[in-house]
């Protein structure tokens, strides 16, 4: 059976590597916001225009 074949070829260490991938929940800190300098975000309305970012790989 295909399923059994896959199970048979799974290395023992795979199970632990998958278990490690289950991330714990992130730490909670009361939500905060901090006013910072605005100048870096003036792309709109100031004449700055982004270049189109296009993947240039072979595909």
């Amino acid at each position, binding site marked *: 059976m295909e399923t059994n074949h896959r199970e048979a*070829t799974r*290395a023992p260490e*795979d199970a632990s*590597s*998958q278990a490690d*991938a289950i991330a*714990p*929940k*992130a*730490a*909670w*800190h*009361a*939500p*905060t*916001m*901090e*006013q*910072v*300098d*605005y100048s*870096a*975000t003036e*792309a*709109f*309305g100031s004449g700055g*225009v*982004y*270049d*189109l*970012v*296009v*993947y240039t*790989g*072979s*595909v």
Partner: protein
Amino acid sequence: MLVRSERAYLRHDGEDTFLVEPGSRSQLRLNPVAASIAEHLGAPITREQLHARLLAQFDVPAEQCAEDADRFVDQLAELGLVEAREEPATDTAARRRYLDLLKRTLVNLVYAEDALRLDLALSGELPGDPLEDARLLRDVRYRRPAAHGDLVAAKRDGTLSVFGARLSHTMIGLSGLDNLERCASKVFADGVPGDFLEAGVCHGGGSIFLRALQVAYGEEDRVTWVADSFGGVPPPEHPVDRAHELDLTEQRHPWMAAGLEAVRDNFATYQLLSDSVRFLPGLFADTLPSAPVERLAILRLDGDLYGSTRDTLTALYDRVAPGGFVIVDDYGALAPCRQAVDEFLVERGLEVELHPVDWTRVCWRKTE
């Protein structure tokens, strides 16, 4: 329901997240919990739904989560960055689940690893041993965490900076889809009449989501118009496009083109193909002026070029109902598109409040 205002948009810069309000030249750096809340508020959500999502993400007692989150949401509301919307209570939870899953499917976040697998295979980076190849392909998300992170960020923001970003039914990202939902829910809530139209649909994902919004909100009588050459972006013929050497044709960018049959099939895959989905195949200059579109509540422009953008605005702007939204996908990314919009607004003497949606997209609400 609560939803983030169009007055502000989220900007991601590495680990940092900012809530930017261009109108008041304000920028707020958010800590991770605040950033998560602002992200969840990208589409209409109840306080209870917000609490549930945060509890799934963060290690925090339920009572403290609700108290802290509510206080922060109230602060945002006081700043005018969050709006409360009256919506019928029935089915909102199921609708929220449907639309969220649909967004993640349309940008291909659900099977994002497949794009990494294809990239590995095409780039010849597989080890060459069948067992090791299989393990790498199986665990690629964890074996290539940086690539996976870049891909997720691209799908969140609607950028094309990595190969896998284009392997989806839409490239406008979660940010672009959230914007569509905010605009549509506002249109529905305010009773703004009219259909939805997207000019420049590529694989159709944005239009599919527009139709899904009509269906999910019980506004199925509205039509979704799908306008495209269905052969890719036309060659740059207008002098502005030629001056910028803006060649986005299928020959240069094969992934940025899809045929009519493929787009129709994509609608059918999502079970959203119906008589209320109408296709306008051809160049905008040929199809839009005579299109049987009477009134639009949402006009979404994604034609990339100066010529396509001008043709769309000229043909359809007057058919956008007061209170309707105009969305421009390429305003920030492509100078010719931006020029077309700016010139149109100046020539028509239109004063609009232009809201950035993300790194490239903008929208405004027609007031007259």
